């Protein structure tokens, strides 16, 4: 029983990582209607920027804010320069563009900062949280930030003009244009926001997994899985999805005899696919109605 509780707690701690990433995944999906394979790498790059600023002596919170600003601007710049010209190209060509972006960002980061791991500071400390050694104050802080972000996103999309305009632009571009929304800039804004949320995710994840150019490779797979499980249209779903994946993966690894440990990722993915087969829009997503 103690092992069970420990694994659930450890799963929640790891799940916070996935939840954070899943939120960024949902954000970009809201804006451009598909997944950005380069998102993890962009987050990694932002994290390196923050690290570099701190190496130059910038205090943590200033570095954090500067990185957010940089990532936001960077996301918009990438959309304007690389993906706006591809707006009329087929979707699969866009996906190829994401892969190209992935390769570029990863390789530039590797050359600039090397592939050895770097320690990344945390503002929350890493002592045990509420007496439990399995969740550190950093991980608790991470969960707090994720929930905070979730609420902010909800308010943004529900109550602000820009948030509403973005939703309109993503779901009904034609009608949105008719009511005077600049859909093209809404997409750019979505890229900027997704990139900034990715930066927050990266900065929160790096103290746990250590900073290096390939740090997001595994995280992104889990982030996608979490977002898809929760429903790509629902930020709340994505966060819950992240925790579910974290906990389930740990339990599968611990309790399925024989192959559980070696196959915990495939087992977790198989479960997600099963959920999708039963509920194709994810646990919290809205079903999509197709018009012929």
């Amino acid at each position: 029983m103690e092992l069970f509780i420990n694994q659930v707690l450890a799963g929640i701690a790891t799940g916070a990582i996935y939840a954070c990433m899943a939120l960024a995944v949902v954000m970009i999906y809201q804006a451009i209607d598909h997944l950005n394979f380069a998102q993890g790498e962009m987050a990694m790059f932002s994290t390196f920027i923050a690290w570099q600023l701190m190496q130059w002596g910038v205090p943590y919170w200033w570095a954090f804010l500067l990185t957010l600003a940089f990532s936001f601007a960077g996301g918009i710049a990438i959309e304007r320069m690389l993906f706006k010209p591809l707006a009329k190209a087929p979707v699969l060509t866009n996906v190829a563009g994401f892969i190209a972006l992935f390769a570029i960002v990863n390789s530039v980061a590797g050359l600039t900062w090397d592939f050895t791991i770097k320690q990344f500071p945390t503002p929350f400390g890493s002592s045990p949280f509420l007496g439990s050694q399995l969740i550190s104050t950093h991980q608790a802080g991470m969960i707090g930030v994720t929930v905070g972000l979730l609420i902010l996103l909800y308010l943004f999309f529900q109550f602000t003009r820009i948030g509403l305009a973005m939703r309109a632009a993503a779901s009904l571009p034609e009608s949105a244009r008719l009511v005077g929304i600049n859909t093209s800039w809404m997409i750019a804004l979505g890229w900027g926001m997704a990139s900034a949320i990715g930066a927050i995710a990266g900065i929160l994840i790096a103290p746990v997994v250590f900073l290096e150019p390939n740090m997001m490779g595994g995280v992104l797979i889990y982030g996608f899985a979490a977002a898809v499980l929760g429903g790509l249209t629902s930020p709340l779903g994505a966060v819950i999805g992240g925790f579910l994946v974290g906990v389930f993966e740990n339990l599968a690894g611990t309790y399925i005899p024989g192959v559980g440990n070696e196959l915990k990722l495939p087992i977790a993915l198989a479960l997600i696919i099963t959920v999708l087969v039963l509920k194709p829009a994810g646990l919290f997503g809205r079903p999509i109605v197709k018009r012929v």
Partner: protein
Amino acid sequence: MRSATIRSAAFWTALVTFAVTNGSALAQKKYDTGATDTEIRIGHIVPYSGPASAYGVIGKTEEAYFKMVNENGGINGRKIKFVSYDDAYSPPKAVEQVRKLVESDEVLVVFNPLGTPSNSAIQKYLNSKKVPQLFVATGATKWNDPKHFPWTIGWQPSYQSEALIYAKYVMKEKPDAKIVVLYQNDDFGKDYVKGLKDGFGAKASMIVAEESYEISEPTIDSHIVKLKATGADVFISITTPKFAAQAIKKLAEIDWKPMHILSNVSISVGSVIKPAGFENAQGILSAAYAKDAADPQWQDDPGMKKFLALLDKYYPEADRLNSSVVYGYGAAQTLAKILEMCGDDLTRANIMKQAANLKDFTPDTLLPGVKINTSATDFAPIEQLQMMRFKGEKWDLFGDVISGDAGH
């Protein structure tokens, strides 16, 4: 006619003198593809891209070393042309690149190819072509097999011989220990576990749990939690740098203090211990065969001075704390040594002969007492390691230099 005879006599005298003074070399020039009077072409593959790209610095260090050699006049007057390709740690790509090296770039040898899968993929090809697969950059035991693969030779100590040393140590220090093992689920981890089990022999039941992880996992926390629950008092970490650092940190966080043994792959102070936190790493045990550039005790060591001077001049952007840089230097120096020993007989057969004829050779970067010895039946150049314990901000070596001969 007469003058010709005299000249030829002079030539022969010179030759005899040369042969006498330089016993190992034949003065008669003999070449295979890839060697000429002015040049020796060396082929190399390493992942510069993909998930294992951290090892790319090995290739860059070796390139820097040969640049230094060339600027100092080359080896026996011949310049080294170092052709290095990216195999992205993918066996099919490795085959393509190695065939390109052998058939298109026409290199004399393929030197220090990295990774067990890539080397397994090219071993048969290179042996059938009789091209040396020289000083492979992997610690699998199977490279020491001169009978079946006379063109393949290893370099670093095998994972199994290292594991054997730890097994001996644990049995001596903690005869009734409960041991748990965390290993990477690939050739490196599996070979190591086998070495451990061989080392414990009849007492292999001391290992109460083995957990494997995949390199795609973001964290290994769950495995550590599970291992702690077994109540073990010895934790053997067969992990690559990122996961080693995670484990060190996690153990401290959950307040678990077993005897912690760390594989040699992850002993770099700069890129493992420091990020994990010095305070978390006190007392960790490991074994080494090379010096650590971050360690102050080698500050005045002439070998390490040469190493640092090389980096300053030819590879200034190198991370001096990265153990892969130290590795590349040692391997490159070993190659330079045997090319020197080959003299003017630069045939592939002679290169293998010289590679199997190293006697007490000590590259600048190896620990004092660790020597490279090879013979026609021993294709495992480095077989010695020394145990060490982490204290303060550096490793303290203790005990003798031990040979971990895995029975080959």
